[in-house]
């Protein structure tokens, strides 16, 4: 042996973990080095830049658009107007709910910030400059701002683009049993009623929306780099809008700087960028600015709710009724399964055993931006959960009962699962009382109430202390294909798993991470199934040429649906590996068992073959039984049998300054049950973020409008987001009720805390000030007014 001989490669001394657990994220390496690939980071050769001219009016007729001065700007390469698009049949595009939305306005503008013209120039400063050279003559029309006036006889008609439309009504929808509910209300001891607004808010991800469109004139292939939570759905929609064949369209979603439902829809400027690329033959990048993001992209909520709850005098809830007016804005751009125009709002009986329930939802157009289903709302369960958790506190207030006791009295009991609620949802699993008890214990609920009583006795200028609870149940993982589709596309997810000859794997998924850590979590799922390290599994998402079809990531569906797909495809690989291992061991597949990450002859661990060895053999000359093709690769499409039902119990403690109305969140205890946790560190991170959303919506966030439809929250100066100073140090706990129908019992966690937390904060503030109800956001001014008995409507500033 010589000194220069290359030593045999030795395994790494510390074994890499296999399977579930809090391992560091695979995606962090690039982000901490500033090496992410967000859409605005992408620079293509010869790329041009787009900018959008937007309407200053909420409602106006377009008299003329003069682009002559902009066109001769030395750096401008194209100016696109609605009329130009109209000639190509592209002035309107379908929305995700089957309505149409103007790409560039032709007849009227219908909300402030609506797209009117698109400039393509050599740099984005020049593109912005050229916007000011476009002359648009508008004839202002009365703006419809208040949804409650939308159906008044004198309300301005917004959608005169649609044949036969004579008013601003969009749909009426109802669910539940009206007769049974009416009967229960007629005979109940107590009925509590309340008007509750879930105001218009915005997901406001830190990265705004954007796209780069690049049409190759020779091959006819269109590549779109985009902030897309649903790349495959976007590809199908672009095919419909542009008339380009779908196999010539590639969507690349890259890294996404937060989505929260803001990046599910296709926005007009994406289509403009495509047209710009068609016209110029160059790639065209468009990245919106923050005001554009807040003014024109998918907002959330805007549900004006009337809740009624019927109960016995000792607090047994008998029935629930809700009457909702939904403000959808100028176009119906809600993103949810087709059969559910109000989303999953009708899961509004939440976590309680309520025998009868009925809800009616009416929706209208107003002169505001389209959207409504976003901001981690779980298809409007956010609205339902907030309504119910407020109503339960209102009932507790009216009965003089402790809200924890009232909840405990009415929670579903473990033996009731699987439980079908009054509006038809089949809850999969849970032990609600245990979860609530744990939250109350962690918070030290009784001690907190004693402290509160002592403070109240003390009086004076000391802060008012409030304790707020919420208990929520979500339905996530849309969904069973028979029940759920978007624009006719069934909500099942594909997965492909390749095993290379050396045993390294590539998992291709249709969902799309926006920060949820898919590259890590899904590698861990496969790792657990195949006994190989997560480091040896690459997860590919977001590029439609590289991944199987599926509906994307929103509604907390990734773990529930694509996670299921990842398990199933890994098990297919494992089953193929069994046949190959049997050939290696000269045994029958039935004689083998899967033990500790290896196939072995039953009871003989020394015969064990790991997946890596089997993968090598599967690619070798090893003789395989007749009909076995070799290799281990597999594909699947996972069609979930039901939704999954994560839930949780939250306790918030606040101190309110009686002189200013300033709220300080002192503590927040969150006990979540999302079934099996694959990477608990990532799960906790998801919860933390959602809790901050709750603090933001409850105390700060609001998109209000003046009487002319001017947006009063169009920048981060006016649309306030929670910072490190408003958020407490979160206290988390967990219970684990595996979903019986998910292949690994996981339920999903992405939106739970956003759904569950606003009610806990609001309930705490109202508990502190002793007010039955006041609407979000509970800003100091609003809290102070509520304390004086003069609460305001928060969503419109009509004076």
């Amino acid at each position, binding site marked *: 042996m010589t000194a220069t001989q290359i030593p045999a490669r030795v395994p790494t001394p510390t074994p890499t973990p296999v399977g579930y657990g809090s391992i560091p994220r695979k995606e*962090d390496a690039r982000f901490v080095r500033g090496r992410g690939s967000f859409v605005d980071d992408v620079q293509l050769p010869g790329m041009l830049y787009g900018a959008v001219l937007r309407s200053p009016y909420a409602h106006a007729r377009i008299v003329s658009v003069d682009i002559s001065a902009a066109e001769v700007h030395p750096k401008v390469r194209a100016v696109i107007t609605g009329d130009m698009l109209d000639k190509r049949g592209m002035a309107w595009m379908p929305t995700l709910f089957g309505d149409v939305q103007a790409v560039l306005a032709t007849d009227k503008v219908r909300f402030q910030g609506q797209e009117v013209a698109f400039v393509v120039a050599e740099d984005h400063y020049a593109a912005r400059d050229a916007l000011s050279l476009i002359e648009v003559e508008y004839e202002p029309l009365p703006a419809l701002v208040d949804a409650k006036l939308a159906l008044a006889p004198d309300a301005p008609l917004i959608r005169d683009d649609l044949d036969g439309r004579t008013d601003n009504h969009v749909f009426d929808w109802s669910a539940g049993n009206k007769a049974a509910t009416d009967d229960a209300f007629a005979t109940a001891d107590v009925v509590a009623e309340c008007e509750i607004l879930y105001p218009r808010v915005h997901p406001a991800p830190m990265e705004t929306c954007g796209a780069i469109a690049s049409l190759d004139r020779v091959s006819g292939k269109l590549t779109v780099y985009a902030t897309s939570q649903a790349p495959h759905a976007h590809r199908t929609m672009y095919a419909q809008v542009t008339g380009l064949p779908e196999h010539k369209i590639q969507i690349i979603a890259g890294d996404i*700087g937060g989505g929260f439902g803001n990046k599910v829809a296709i926005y007009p400027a994406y289509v403009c960028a495509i047209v710009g690329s068609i016209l110029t033959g160059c790639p065209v990048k468009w990245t919106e600015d923050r005001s554009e993001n807040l003014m024109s992209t998918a907002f959330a909520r805007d549900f004006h709710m009337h809740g009624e709850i019927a109960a016995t005098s000792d607090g047994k809830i008998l029935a629930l009724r809700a009457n909702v007016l939904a403000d959808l804005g100028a176009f119906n751009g809600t993103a949810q399964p087709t059969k559910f125009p109000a989303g999953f709002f009708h899961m509004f009986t939440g976590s309680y055993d309520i025998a009868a329930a009925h809800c009616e939802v009416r929706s209208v157009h107003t002169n505001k931006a389209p959207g409504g289903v976003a901001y981690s709302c779980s298809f409007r369960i956010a609205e339902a959960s907030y309504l119910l958790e407020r109503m339960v506190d209102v009932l507790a207030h009216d009965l003089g009962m402790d809200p924890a006791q009232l909840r405990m009295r009415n929670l579903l009991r473990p033996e009731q699962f699987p439980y079908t609620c009054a509006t038809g949802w089949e809850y999969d699993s849970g032990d609600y009382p245990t979860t609530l008890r744990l939250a109350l214990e962690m918070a030290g609920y009784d001690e907190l109430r004693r402290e509160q009583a002592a403070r109240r006795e003390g009086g004076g200028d000391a802060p008012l202390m409030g304790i707020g609870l919420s208990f929520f149940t979500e339905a996530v993982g849309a969904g069973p294909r028979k029940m759920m589709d978007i624009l006719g596309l069934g909500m099942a997810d594909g997965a492909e798993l390749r095993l290379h000859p050396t045993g390294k794997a590539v998992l291709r998924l249709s969902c799309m991470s926006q920060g949820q850590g898919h590259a890590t979590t899904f590698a861990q799922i496969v790792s657990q199934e195949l006994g190989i390290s997560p480091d040896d599994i690459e997860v590919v998402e977001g590029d439609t040429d590289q991944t199987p079809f599926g509906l994307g990531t929103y509604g907390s569906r990734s773990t529930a649906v694509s996670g299921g797909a990842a398990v199933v495809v890994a098990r297919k690989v494992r089953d193929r590996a069994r046949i190959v291992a049997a050939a290696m061991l000269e045994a029958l597949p039935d004689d083998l068992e899967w033990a500790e990450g290896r196939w072995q002859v039953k009871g003989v661990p020394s015969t064990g073959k790991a997946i890596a060895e089997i993968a090598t053999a599967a690619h070798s000359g090893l003789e395989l039984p007749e009909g076995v093709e070799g290799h281990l690769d597999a594909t699947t499409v996972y069609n979930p049998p039901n939704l999954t039902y994560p839930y949780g119990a939250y306790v918030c403690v606040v101190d309110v300054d009686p002189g200013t109305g300033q709220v300080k969140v002192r503590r927040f205890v969150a006990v979540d049950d999302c079934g099996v946790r694959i990477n608990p560190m990532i799960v906790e991170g998801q919860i933390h973020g959602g809790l901050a959303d709750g603090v933001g919506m409850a105390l700060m966030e609001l998109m209000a409008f003046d009487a002319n439809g001017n947006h009063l929250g169009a920048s981060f100066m006016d649309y306030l987001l929670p910072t*490190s100073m408003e958020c407490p140090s979160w206290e988390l706990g967990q219970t684990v009720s595996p979903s019986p129908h998910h292949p690994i019992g996981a339920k999903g966690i992405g939106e739970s805390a956003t759904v569950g937390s606003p009610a806990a904060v609001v309930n705490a503030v109202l508990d502190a000030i002793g007010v039955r109800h006041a609407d979000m956001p509970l800003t100091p001014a609003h809290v102070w007014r509520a304390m004086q008995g003069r609460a305001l409507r928060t969503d419109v500033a009509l004076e």
Partner: protein
Amino acid sequence: MEISITVNGEDYRRDVEPRLLLVHLLRDKLRLTGTHWGCDTSNCGVCVVLLDGVPVKSCTVLAVMASGRQVRTVEGLERSDGLDPVQQGFIDRHGLQCGFCTSGMMMTARWLLDHNPDPSEREIREAISGQVCRCTGYENIVRSVRRAAELEAGS
């Protein structure tokens, strides 16, 4: 206008429009895209870089104002012997999710630890209070900075 600027120890000379923002110089002209852009109003802080060692929001600094000065961006954090403790702290304590605010948060954290090697939770929260994160609820960012302080104290 002609400017000369030192970014992460490298000297650059560029002819720029007087109105060019530092964030756009870094991202579009120097192709250092680790510094992000998130709002028009210097509220969000995803664009924070160190200018002569002090955190600034690079969307509210003109490139010409940075002429003759030293800029340090996220790309300049990594050392020849490995990650900066701040980067390692963010990995160890799950201080990032989507990664968009991360660069700015880490630059502020670097500045904080340079001036206060053992910051309390309160001091960390104050240091990052001009920056917004929509994913983490700040908890793990605070823990990450504490972790970085511990790593630095231990090294």
